[in-house]
Every structure is written in C-alpha cells, then in structure tokens.
C-alpha cells in the first residue's frame, strides 16, 4: 500500500544515511531559512537551491522519479497562489538570460521564483526524510530539549499511524465490497461516520492494550531513553560542504 512506502528509503544504507541526524536536520533547517530569505524576483537563484538536495538524494540512492512524483503531488496549492502574481503584478520588465532576451512582467518572475523556491525546499525536506530514520529525528529533538512528552507523543504517533491506517483501509474495503449503488447523501454520511466511529472505538481498545503492554514491562510513568549519538569525520565534512554551499548562495543573493 502507498502509505507503507513513505519512509521506506530511510531504512536503506548509504553514506548519506549514515550521516549524523543532527547535522542533517540542522543543515535542512538552515537551508530552508536560506530559501525563504532569497530574493523574490530571481528564479535563477531559487533554482540553484535544487542542486544540493538533488546531489544528496542521488548519493542516498533515492529514486528521483519517486521524489518528483511526491513534489508534483504537493504542488497545486502553491502553484495557484504563485499564478495569482501574474494577475496582480503586471509591471513590465525585460529579462536578459544569456543569449536570450524577452519582455515579460514582474509577476512572471515572481511566480517562477516562488515555484522554484517551493521545489527547492521540498527537495531539501525530502532529502532529509528519505535518508534519516524517524526515530533518529526524535532522538535529535530530545537532544535539542524539545519537551519529552512531545517526543514520546511523536513516537507513539509514528508507530500507530500505519497500524490504524491499515484498519481504516480494511473498514473502507469492507464497505466498498458491499456497495452496489450510491445511497442518498444523508445515509452515506451516517455510514461514513459509523466507519470513523468504529475506527475510533477500536483505537481506544488498542490504547488500553498498549497501556497494559507498557505496565507489564514495568512502566510506572518514568520514561527512559536508550538513545545515543556519535559524531564522525564524515559529518564534519558534510557540514563543511553544506556551509560552503549555503554561504555561496547567500553571497550570490546579497550581490543583487
């Protein structure tokens, strides 16, 4: 099923996967900040931000088709907003691009930049998620003093999303199998609500069992964590290259 594959690449092995999760999360955060800070009328600069995450994705052996599909799927909302600039910013301008030169509007530049930035930050985030285990990210959050209860909550959430999505999927299938025609909306609504309700009741039962499983293994409210970190030379190298790359883009941006 689709959902089981969202993080399947995170469990591969590659030099990128082996990098320290702290380094990767920090670099992704800073890179996203850079992307947000880049000029609003420079599609070329926004485009340069694709390069870094792209290389990471390739080195991490993540299929580019998978990433592209993922990004295209998320694109519509931002695209609609970006396209409004065409209407609201019709300031004319001339664009020089190497041997080419054409007349356009600032709206076009803005629209292109916005879309390119969006793809850039999506690539960066995808590169992080596809090469880092979620449990390692949780470890980082804990290290960075995110409240423990939130980290625990995220851990449970990650663990049970897939279990419950499967349950909902089965409920949905059972419903589809018995559907001959579309019923009046009111009835469809009632059935849908009953399906959601039954998933909810099942979820509550599951939570009772989890509590039992935790208590059976000596849980009394005090949370312990086995998590540890070691930073390696490769991590320093990664951070150095990332700093150079981000610094270069920042420099280019400030030249304008």
């Amino acid at each position, binding site marked *: 099923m689709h959902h089981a594959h969202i993080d399947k690449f995170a469990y591969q092995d590659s030099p990128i996967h082996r990098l320290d999760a702290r380094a990767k999360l920090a670099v992704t955060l800073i890179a996203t900040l850079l992307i947000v800070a880049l000029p*609003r009328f420079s599609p070329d600069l926004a485009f340069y931000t694709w390069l870094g995450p792209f290389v990471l994705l390739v080195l991490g052996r993540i299929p580019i088709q998978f990433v592209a599909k993922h990004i295209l799927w998320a694109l519509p909302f931002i695209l609609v907003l970006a396209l409004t600039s065409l209407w609201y910013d019709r300031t004319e301008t001339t664009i020089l691009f190497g041997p080419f030169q054409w007349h356009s509007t600032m709206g076009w530049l803005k629209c292109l930049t916005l879309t390119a930035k969006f793809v850039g930050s999506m690539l960066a985030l995808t590169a992080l998620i596809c090469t880092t285990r979620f449990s390692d990210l949780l470890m980082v959050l804990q290290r960075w003093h995110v409240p423990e*209860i939130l980290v625990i909550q995220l851990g449970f959430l990650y663990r049970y999303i897939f279990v419950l999505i499967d349950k*909902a999927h089965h409920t949905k299938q059972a419903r589809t199998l018995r559907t001959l025609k579309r019923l009046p909306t009111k009835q469809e609504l009632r059935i849908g609500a009953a399906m959601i309700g039954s998933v909810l*009741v099942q979820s509550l039962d599951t939570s009772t069992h989890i509590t039992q499983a935790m208590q059976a293994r000596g849980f009394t409210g005090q949370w312990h964590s086995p998590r540890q970190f070691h930073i390696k030379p490769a991590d320093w190298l990664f951070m150095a290259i990332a700093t150079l790359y981000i610094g270069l883009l920042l420099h280019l941006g400030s030249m304008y």
Partner: protein
Amino acid sequence: MHMANELLSVPVAAGTFAAAGIGLGVVCNRVKQTISTDQLGLMGILGAFVFAAQMINLPLPGLPGTSGHLIGAVLLAILLGPHAGALVVSSIVMVQCLLFQDGGLLALGCNIINMALVPSYLGFALYRLILHQTHDTWRFNLAVMASALITVLAGAILVPMQTALSGVLTLPFSTFAWTMLSVHLVIGLMEGIITVAVLAYVRQIRPDILSHTSESSTAGRGKLLLVTLGMVTLFLSAFVSLYASDRPDGLEWSYAQRPDQPAFESMVQAHEQAKALDTLQSKYTLLPDYARRPVPMGHINTEDATVSAGWTSFAGVVGSLVTMAAVWGTALLIRKKTPNL
C-alpha cells in the same frame, strides 16, 4: 490549508516559529502535570486515529461528486480536553510536515498555531460555552457544530493574515481572505457534520468514553468566555486592519498600468518601504539583473550594464542543470555495473 515556507518572510517565519515553540512548551508543561500513565498511549493512538479517519472520505451534502474528510481538532479537544488535544494535534501537524511533507519546515510554527493551538483552545472554549452543563442532545450537537465550524474558519483566516504580514504574495489580502473563508465555510460545515455524527455514534456504542468529558471542568466559565472573546477580538482587529491596509496594494497595479500617472513612482516607493520592514528581504529585493523597479516602465536602464549579469544567471542555471544530469548519470552508471552497491 497547510502554510508553505515560501509564502512567509524570514521575520514572520521566525516569529511564528518562536511563538508556536513557546505555546507548545506551555501546553507540554500543562499536560505533563495532569497526565496519568494510561493517557500516554491514548494520546498517541488518538493522534494516529486522525490520520486513519482522514482515509475515509465522506460526500459533501449538496455538492455531488465532491468529498471531504475529518480534520479532528475539535473532536480531540472534546475527547481529551484542550491541553492534551492541542498537544496531540500539534504532533499531527509535525508528522504531516516531516513524513508527508504537508507544509514546510519553517512554516511549522504557523501551522501549529493555525491548525493546533488556536483550534484546540478556541474550539474547546466555544464547545463548553454553548453546552453549558446541559446533557441535551440538540444543544450538544449545536455546540459541536458551531465550535468545529468557527475553529476551521479561524484557522483558515490566519493563513492570509500571516501571508499578508510577510508580503511575499502580490495577491491582495482581501481577495485571499475571502477565498479562504468561502472555501473553508464548506470545509468547516463538513467538519461540523462529521464531528457531530462520529460523536453520536460513539455516544451510542460506548457512552463511557464521553461521560467523563461532560462532568469535568464545569468550572471556569468566565475563563472560557475570556479566551473566546480575546481570540475573537484579536481576529477581528487583525482582519480589519489588514483589510484596510491592503487598499494601496489594490491601487498599485492599476497605477502600474498607467505609468504616465505622476503618483505612480511614490506609490511604488511606499510599497517598497513597507517591504523594507524585513531587513534581510529588502537587502535582496533589488535585482539589476532584470532591470526592474524603481525604473519607470517602458525603457530599460542601459542594456550594456546588465548584459554581463544576464550571462551570469545563464551560466549558473545551465551549469546547475549539467551538474545534476552528470551526478545522476554517473550514479545510474555505477549502480548498473555494481547492482548490489
């Protein structure tokens, strides 16, 4: 409705990120003080439940062919109380960002505020205010319906507000706001109907689940009223002020089409000044490469001065493309030779 990084300016992103962080910290503290061991698993499961419930699409009444799904903030606030509810919905928003890439990393602050903190507290306050210690089914449904609808609208209106503060989009605030409000009116009604129907089912099958929520926290009606009034006032004042302030924006492009107007230049400059609030951005906004504002329309500076810059971008873009193709090609080749690498 998920906010994207690119719609925000650096100060707005940083500000909302910090605000959400502090808010979430306070929420975590509150939950930690009151939580029992059996609620830890319950919170995790209910968060995952929302993801599962979103798999089940329901038809929109009156709009054949369309469907909607549960958002869940009000449902969780009713089942868990506002603090634990806010924590669970925040964790959902974080997982949506990290695992499913809904909403950007820097926009996480905005999304936590819009989709978790505001809906949970506002929704719970409205629910308690309207319900007011009665057990009447009709009143219960009304309370759930109203709080679901209003929280969805409140969350939706925050998106154009934060975008307007950032000034990235040229789209006038009022247009964006009314579009968001009308779309989310439908989504909010749907959310209300689904929440009412799901809770009705739960009441029928497992009344024990809901019984504890109505007896607890009957006190503090004044506090609830204060929360609701405070939030509503904040929304209204922000809405009105932004609505008023975007008038010049609307004027701007109509002037821009007629550069012969003498007021044009000052108008554009005023606009630039507004943007200069954001220092990092304003440093970057001017781009000689594209021979742009505040140059009057119709003629470009001197082409000679910008030609070299045009070549820089060209070389940069082509260079990046070649590099990406080369990296990808090499990787594919190596992998073909040693498939087990």
